[in-house]
């Protein structure tokens, strides 16, 4: 009787590979009867020692016995009339498993090598400067700044003179929706950009009132723009 370290096998496939290697068996022509018997001895040993047996070993036992039984019967044939070896599926599973078992050995080597290396893990000595000062992200804009920017926008001559007069039907609600849309969660738009293309002063006024309304509701925020007389509007949505 060979010495088998009971905890050496990761599963039934591993155990079968062990048998095949130990007895120098041809994997394509496994003596299924012998190997089944060996497998059963191992299984019983596990039982006797009251070790935890995974259901997988038991499942393999039944698979082996099934194959064994099929070997005694006339061979089934595939669609081309060739005999199907009842061991074929098992052989394929063994080979595929062996492939990954080999790779796990590669990985184990990599693991060993990598364990010899230590990456830097102590960063308290690093000099850091908070880059906040670089951002113009400051919320110290007063309503005065707002009015100033608004006034400057109103004073700019419209790019084109439009003569036709139509019924003017812009609402604060519409403009609010427009602003919210343009500042959709995190998106930013500058005031100058926002009113670009607005030819009617009234539309700019209504947009401005919409802005005030949204600020009051806390749905947008303002911050400084690098440009003079302009400011950035951004969405906040904190309810």
């Amino acid at each position, binding site marked *: 009787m060979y010495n088998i370290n009971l905890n050496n096998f990761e599963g039934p496939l591993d155990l079968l590979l062990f048998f095949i290697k130990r007895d120098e068996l041809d994997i394509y022509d496994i003596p299924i009867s012998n190997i089944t018997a060996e497998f059963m001895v191992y299984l019983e040993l596990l039982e006797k020692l009251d070790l935890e047996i995974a259901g997988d070993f038991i499942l393999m036992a039944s698979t082996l016995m099934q194959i*064994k039984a099929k070997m005694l019967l006339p061979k089934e044939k595939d669609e081309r009339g060739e005999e199907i070896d009842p061991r074929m599926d098992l052989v394929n599973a063994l080979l595929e498993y062996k492939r990954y078992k080999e790779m796990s050995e590669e990985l184990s080597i990599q693991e060993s090598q990598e364990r010899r290396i230590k990456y830097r893990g102590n*960063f308290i000595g690093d*000099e850091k400067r908070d880059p*906040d000062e670089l951002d113009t992200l400051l919320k110290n804009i007063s309503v005065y700044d707002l009015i100033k920017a608004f006034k400057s926008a109103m004073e700019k001559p419209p790019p084109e003179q439009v003569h036709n007069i139509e019924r003017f039907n812009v609402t604060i609600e519409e403009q609010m929706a427009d602003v919210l849309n343009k500042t959709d969660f995190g998106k930013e738009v500058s005031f100058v950009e926002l009113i670009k293309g607005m030819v009617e002063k009234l539309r700019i006024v209504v947009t401005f009132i919409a802005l005030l309304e949204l600020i009051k509701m806390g749905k947008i925020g303002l911050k400084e723009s690098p440009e003079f007389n302009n400011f950035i509007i951004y969405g906040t949505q904190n309810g």
Partner: protein
Amino acid sequence: MDSIYNSIIEALIFSSDDPLPTSEIIKAIKEIDGSDIEITPKDVEVSVDYLNERYEDDEKSFIIKRIANGFAFGTKQEYAKYVGFLSSVKSKRRLSQAALETLSIIAYKQPITKPEIENLRGVNSDYMMNTLLEKNLITIKGRAETIGRPLLYVTTDEFLKYFGLHKITDLPKPREVDEIMKDEDFIEEKRKIMMNQIEEVIENEVESGDNDGSTTE
């Protein structure tokens, strides 16, 4: 002291997760290379000074600093803004545990209102909600019919993309997560049932086939 210890001292300080005291450096070297190695605290000081001079000469961006009774590597002041930018970007990008918690509540209970979220988490969630909105992981979808008509929050397509999901129902079910966790009792039960079923087969098999009289007991 042999000059080879300059590199070893460098490696030791580099690899330590805390500022490394002189005594530890000496201890490590003696432990590995033998207690007969002659190395004094003074030697270590001299070695660190030598290393730092080399870093200066070679225009390295880091030096060894004396911090909290030990030595630690640190990047220099000249690079503070670059280093600072990196760490601020990182801290912004990493979804904090709190954000993740909030996000998971929204993901599994959507559509959900802020009061409901706060009720579940037990803390104010304004900041978290804003962060998630800013990162476009959640969005607002209508209002609840309840009093005050609070806004309803749902996850976005960006959220799905981030987590590699096609649709929101692809989220792992809590049950599936439990399944991954090993349930010892369950496995043991399953084993016993299977074992009993196969016991008979084995016995028949052993008797009919390789009958040597030894059966399972």
